[in-house]
């Protein structure tokens, strides 16, 4: 019987999983970042260098038309023909100076572009490498090739470089500047100039590659846009610097000037607009000519394009072509992952292009080796569809071609490298919009179906089980028939719609059909809707979901959640003020205040995310740079381990249900678990701060490992086993009394202490055991927060209970039969369904607890430390599991509490009516919790799909979507666990005990 509600929840879970899977497949493109390095001991994989050193200047957001001799018509007085040096030199020395328009792959943000330029590859959001979290690169790049060749790199400018390459630059010649402050137009540029010119002047300076990254043009673009006198002044300054650099340049130093990306007409960038992806590249060799004066380069090698608005075509190449070109010009191997193609002009040193042939051959072989390696890797299947074509082109290359047939060889090799690039770009750099749409459709219909189910279950009374049984038959059948429809759809449509596989089609068909069937069978009748239902619109949920459309509110979600949480209890406070009895008034107002204070105190704890600076102070740790707990938390941690179980016991004592299992778990098991959990982190603090000296390290490590193992093992083996055997928190005493009314006979009187909360108290114990399991994995400040969260949850339950009492009283008053108030049975309106406004605070506490236990919707906030709670070294599967538990444990904990809304302070009589109601309400509370988080997921998925070309998508929207997706899975699992195991066991035990006690 209990499985009916459970199977409904399982079905919703399936729809969620299907939607998340399809959307994620379309949105989060992954690429395996191979860490192989192109080694070249014998010098066979490179050319002899044409230059000894190179100066690489990056002017951020330098769009091609800023340098172009043929700017769009009419030229802008503010940004065209101002940076004139490149076009002047190109006109004067065409064999030494080369100007290109380059295509920079989206996302056109500096970090991604720097990775692309240096590795010659296409970055995606998740480069599945060994280093999941950091921004630093672990792929081969020309920077690492320089380093491997023992050469020195000097660097100045945008500090993005030092995050990507933390250890590559010579420490004496590294001058990073903060790239965050867009308001500041000059600091970075002046800093670069200040350090650049002396290094160029100083002939003894020992650099081999000098990188300078100017930010001014980009910042002017963001701040005032390109059509502004400030842009003119900025470009004038850049022109002056370039002239001085060229003056100071050695003959054997190659100068490369490039923009990492362009800017749109407003001066912003990040997306894939024509103006954003157009960046300039200028290569200048002061000494030797790179292009032979009489070179006759075949036209098919010289691709060109007309810049929007201009009339004359210009040479147009891929920005990543710089990686192989620069490597070979300086005598280094091509980076292993490169997909660029060498630029012909720069290797045409003789009339016939012998060096070019050699360069291109090296280039093609390198690409081939990369593709072979990728295909052999775990992700090799991605290349399946394109592999045959690539192999065919590869076979067509004739490597031993005679000079006469050279042209065909060049053509074949460039076709191969370009085809490889096109294939990989399709794989990694494009959203699969069809899959995203399918996923969004499923998420939307699934959320709608779950909401309707929630409403329907509330409207159905005792009949809910027969209805659910019928619907269950329906959706199970429709899942199979839907899969069949999906198959048919796949056969017919797959030729026209790219990127949808058979599995996806089956999944989509099955999930969509069954949700449509559920929507159809659970649709509310028009008559049941009224104006009154307008008051039950979940305003906090709507605001919470809408917040994801704005990057600011997504960044500040932790504050938004606090605000919404307090807002969500305002209606209860109003009810409390107007409550008809002073007992109810004090209960509602007092517990609301306790709830609000706990929530607000939780909100004190935060690890700030990067975007919240400078308005945020880290309080989760002692300071932003010192990841140890704040001192007062150290002092508080041990008292809290004792106080929290006492407080929970105190709550249960209100209903006299601190007996039975509660009398064992709360005074003994829980405090010892919490104590061990706190001790773990206190010892960890002693260990990491080396307070006792290094000779203690081994002992401390052993000590804390044991603490954590005893705490978690104790709960798992002992706590849950005990609860399973003795779940109830009742004290039943039987007393035999002489019956005065009937002469000599005796009467048996049974007293059940904890009767009023017979369902709720055992579940609270069940819930506390998970709290104990989670506690050791959460750092000290988080433990304080968890304790407050537990208090807030219990206070909320008490508020809900009293508000229901008030409503019950009001219903009795309104019924016109006020004397019914004297009959206790009518005070428990058996049919009052759970309201969504009761679920909302709980769902919000789940999100709140996530943020306040030291997490943010940003990958850097993952607490990797917790991987080593149970073991001193990385151990599978425990270490990743512990990190997941740490990150999503708070969500799980609070979602696990949602059935309490159905169970708390519910008396177990009469049976089986009470049991039926409890199980229905538990399923509804679980559904409500799922709906809340699914609505957040739907909103964040829609927003990240809509804003997928937004500047911040990979920093803000995509991480929030990932958080929402995992949260939905975690919440679903939590409520399934809660309803399946917790409610199932409690309802079994209670109904077995009380079925004999039905009032006659």
């Amino acid at each position: 019987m209990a499985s009916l509600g459970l199977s409904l929840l399982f079905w919703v879970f399936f729809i969620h999983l299907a939607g998340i899977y399809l959307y994620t497949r379309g949105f989060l493109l992954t690429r395996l970042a191979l860490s192989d390095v192109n080694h070249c001991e014998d010098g066979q994989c490179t050319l002899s260098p044409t230059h000894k050193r190179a100066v690489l200047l990056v002017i951020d957001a330098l769009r091609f038309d800023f340098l172009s001799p043929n700017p769009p018509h009419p030229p802008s007085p503010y940004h065209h023909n101002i940076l004139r040096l490149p076009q002047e030199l190109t006109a004067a020395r065409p064999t030494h100076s080369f100007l290109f328009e380059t295509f920079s792959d989206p996302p056109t943000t500096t970090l991604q572009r720097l990775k692309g330029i240096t590795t010659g590859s296409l970055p995606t959001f998740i480069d599945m490498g060994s280093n999941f979290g950091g921004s630093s690169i672990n792929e081969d790049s020309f920077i690492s090739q320089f380093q491997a060749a023992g050469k020195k790199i000097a660097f100045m400018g945008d500090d993005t470089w030092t995050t990507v390459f933390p250890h590559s630059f010579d420490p004496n010649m590294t001058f990073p500047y903060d790239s965050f402050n867009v308001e500041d137009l000059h600091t970075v540029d002046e800093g670069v100039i200040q350090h650049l010119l002396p290094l160029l002047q100083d002939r003894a300076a020992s650099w081999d590659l000098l990188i300078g990254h100017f930010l001014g043009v980009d910042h002017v673009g963001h701040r005032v846009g390109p059509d502004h006198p400030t842009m003119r002044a900025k470009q004038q300054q850049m022109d002056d610097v370039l002239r001085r650099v060229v003056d100071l340049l050695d003959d054997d130093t190659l100068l490369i000037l490039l923009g990492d990306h362009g800017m749109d007409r407003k001066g912003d960038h990040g997306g894939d607009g024509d103006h954003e992806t157009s960046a300039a590249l200028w290569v200048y060799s002061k000494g030797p000519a790179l292009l032979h004066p009489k070179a006759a380069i075949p036209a098919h090698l010289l691709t060109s394009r007309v810049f929007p608005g201009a009339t004359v075509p210009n040479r147009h190449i891929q920005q990543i072509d710089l990686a192989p070109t620069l490597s070979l010009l300086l005598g280094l191997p091509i980076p292993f992952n490169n997909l660029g193609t060498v630029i012909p002009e720069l290797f045409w040193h003789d009339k016939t292009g012998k060096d070019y042939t050699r360069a291109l051959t090296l280039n093609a072989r390198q690409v081939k080796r990369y593709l072979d390696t990728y295909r052999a890797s775990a992700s090799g299947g991605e290349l399946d569809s394109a592999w045959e074509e690539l192999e065919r082109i590869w076979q067509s290359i004739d490597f031993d071609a005679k000079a006469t047939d050279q042209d065909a060889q060049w053509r074949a090799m460039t076709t191969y490298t370009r085809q490889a690039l096109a294939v990989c770009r399709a794989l990694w750099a494009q959203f699969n919009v069809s899959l995203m749409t399918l996923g969004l459709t499923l998420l939307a219909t699934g959320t709608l179906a779950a909401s309707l189910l929630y409403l329907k279950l509330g409207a159905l009374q005792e009949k809910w089980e027969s209805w659910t049984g019928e619907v269950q038959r329906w959706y199970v059948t429709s899942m199979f028939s839907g899969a069949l429809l999906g198959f048919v759809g796949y056969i017919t449509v797959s030729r026209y719609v790219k990127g949808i596989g058979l599995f996806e089609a089956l999944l989509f068909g099955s999930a969509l059909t069954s949700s449509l069937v559920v929507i159809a069978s659970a649709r509310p009748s028009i008559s049941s809707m009224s104006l009154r239902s307008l008051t039950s619109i979940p305003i906090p949920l709507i605001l919470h979901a809408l917040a994801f459309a704005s990057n600011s509110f997504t960044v500040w979600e932790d504050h938004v959640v606090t605000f919404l949480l307090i807002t969500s209890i305002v209606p209860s406070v109003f009810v409390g003020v107007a409550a008809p009895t002073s007992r109810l008034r004090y209960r509602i107002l007092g517990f609301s205040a306790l709830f609000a204070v706990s929530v607000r105190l939780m909100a004190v704890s935060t690890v700030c995310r990067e975007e919240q600076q400078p308005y945020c102070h880290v309080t989760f740790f002692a300071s932003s740079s010192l990841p140890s707990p704040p001192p007062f938390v150290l002092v508080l941690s041990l008292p809290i381990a004792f106080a929290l179980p006492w407080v929970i016991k105190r709550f249960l004592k209100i209903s006299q249900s601190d007996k039975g299992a509660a009398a064992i778990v709360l005074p003994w098991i829980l405090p010892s678990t919490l104590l061990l959990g706190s001790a773990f982190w206190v010892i960890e603090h002693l260990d990491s701060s080396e307070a006792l000296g290094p000779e203690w390290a081994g002992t401390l490590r052993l000590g804390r490992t044991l603490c954590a193992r005893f705490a978690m093992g104790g709960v798992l083996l002992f706590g849950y086993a005990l609860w399973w055997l003795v779940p109830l928190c009742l004290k039943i005493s039987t007393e035999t009394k002489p019956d005065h009314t009937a002469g000599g006979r005796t009467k048996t009187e049974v007293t059940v202490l904890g009767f009023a909360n017979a369902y709720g108290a055992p579940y609270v114990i069940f819930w506390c055991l998970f709290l104990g399991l989670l506690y050791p994995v959460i750092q000290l400040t988080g433990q304080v927060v968890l304790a407050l969260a537990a208090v807030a949850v219990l206070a909320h339950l008490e508020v809900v209970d009293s508000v229901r009492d008030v409503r019950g009283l009001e219903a009795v008053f309104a019924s016109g039969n006020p004397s019914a108030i004297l009959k206790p049975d009518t005070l428990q309106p058996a049919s009052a369904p759970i309201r969504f406004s009761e679920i909302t605070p709980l769902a919000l506490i789940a999100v709140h607890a996530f943020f306040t236990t030291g997490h943010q919707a940003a990958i850097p906030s993952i607490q990797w430390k917790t991987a080593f709670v149970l073991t001193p070294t990385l151990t599978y599967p425990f270490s990743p599991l512990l990190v997941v538990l740490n990150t999503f444990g708070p969500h799980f904990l609070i979602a696990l509490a949602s059935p309490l809304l159905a169970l708390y302070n519910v008396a177990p009589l009469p049976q089986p009516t009470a049991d039926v109601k409890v199980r229905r309400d538990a399923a509804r509370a679980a559904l409500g919790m799922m709906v809340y988080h699914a609505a957040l997921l739907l909103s964040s998925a829609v927003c990240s799909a809509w804003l997928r070309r937004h500047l911040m998508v990979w920093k803000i929207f995509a991480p929030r979507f990932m958080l929402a997706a995992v949260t939905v899975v975690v919440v679903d699992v939590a409520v399934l666990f809660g309803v399946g195991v917790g409610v199932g066991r409690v309802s079994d035990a209670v109904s077995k005990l009380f079925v004999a006690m039905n009032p006659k």
Partner: protein
Amino acid sequence: MPSRKVRTTPASSISAGSQPEVSLEAGSFFPFARYTSVVGVHTSLLAFSALLLPTTPTSLLTKGVSLYPNGSATAEDGFRRDIVGVLTENPVRTVAWMCVGSLILQGWWASWLNTWSIELRGHANAKGNSAPNSAEMTKQMLERRDWGNQRLAAFGRAISMTLAASIAFHVVTVLFGAPISSHPLHTFLMNLLLAILAVLPPAYVLGLPSTGSDSPSLVSRLTWIRLFAELSPRTPIERALVYPAAGAAMGCWVGAIPIGLDWERSWQAWPLTPAFGAMGGYIVGSLIALVTSATFAFAQVGREARDAQAQASKAKRS
């Protein structure tokens, strides 16, 4: 003290219309023209005290004069920018000025409402008792003589309740997420403004809610609960007390939302948006109260006219 309380509260509770016929009667002497004009003046002066008052005295006297030399569009534009600049330059000063302005205005508004409620009581008595009760008349005359002192004391009590409410609001604002330790003055002044807007008029007109167990204090308490917890006013005066107060609270709540945006505007400084939101919400609430009450009053007049007609025709037929 208690005797005075006793005298004011039943009056207001009668006007509060615990019996439906009082509100029926109230419609017939709803002072539409006077009420409309007073609300108009009151709300525009409130807007003035929010937007222009904080720019005095230094800014408007020195800069304002020099900004108007040619009166062209650019000067106007410059003037507008200047006003935002001056308003946001020092949020504490701005909100303090708003408090001062609204304190004066709310004092006047509350006393006007009080006069209205006394008049209403007078009308009710005049209508209720066909023969004027001489004792009641004497009492009213005595009341009028004692006017000044009594009003001052009532105003003092209202002020003290406003202060207490501002402290309570401060706690609530912190619970909503306002900084705990920093910006105390900012937060407090914002809540003082909210209390002046929302609490001062009802505290003056209705008297303080008391915790006593005698029937007048019970009535007073129930009136407060009905108005501000159940939000169900029944007479025009109650609407003029409740709607603006609710509007101010909601405006304040809404005003917290734009602070989170990354627009880096000076007006996003704490607590400007909630303060201006409260002021705006108050004005909107006041206007809604006016429109609602006027609609009810006119509907009442229309119904009475129809009833009279029906009775007349009935009489004719018979």
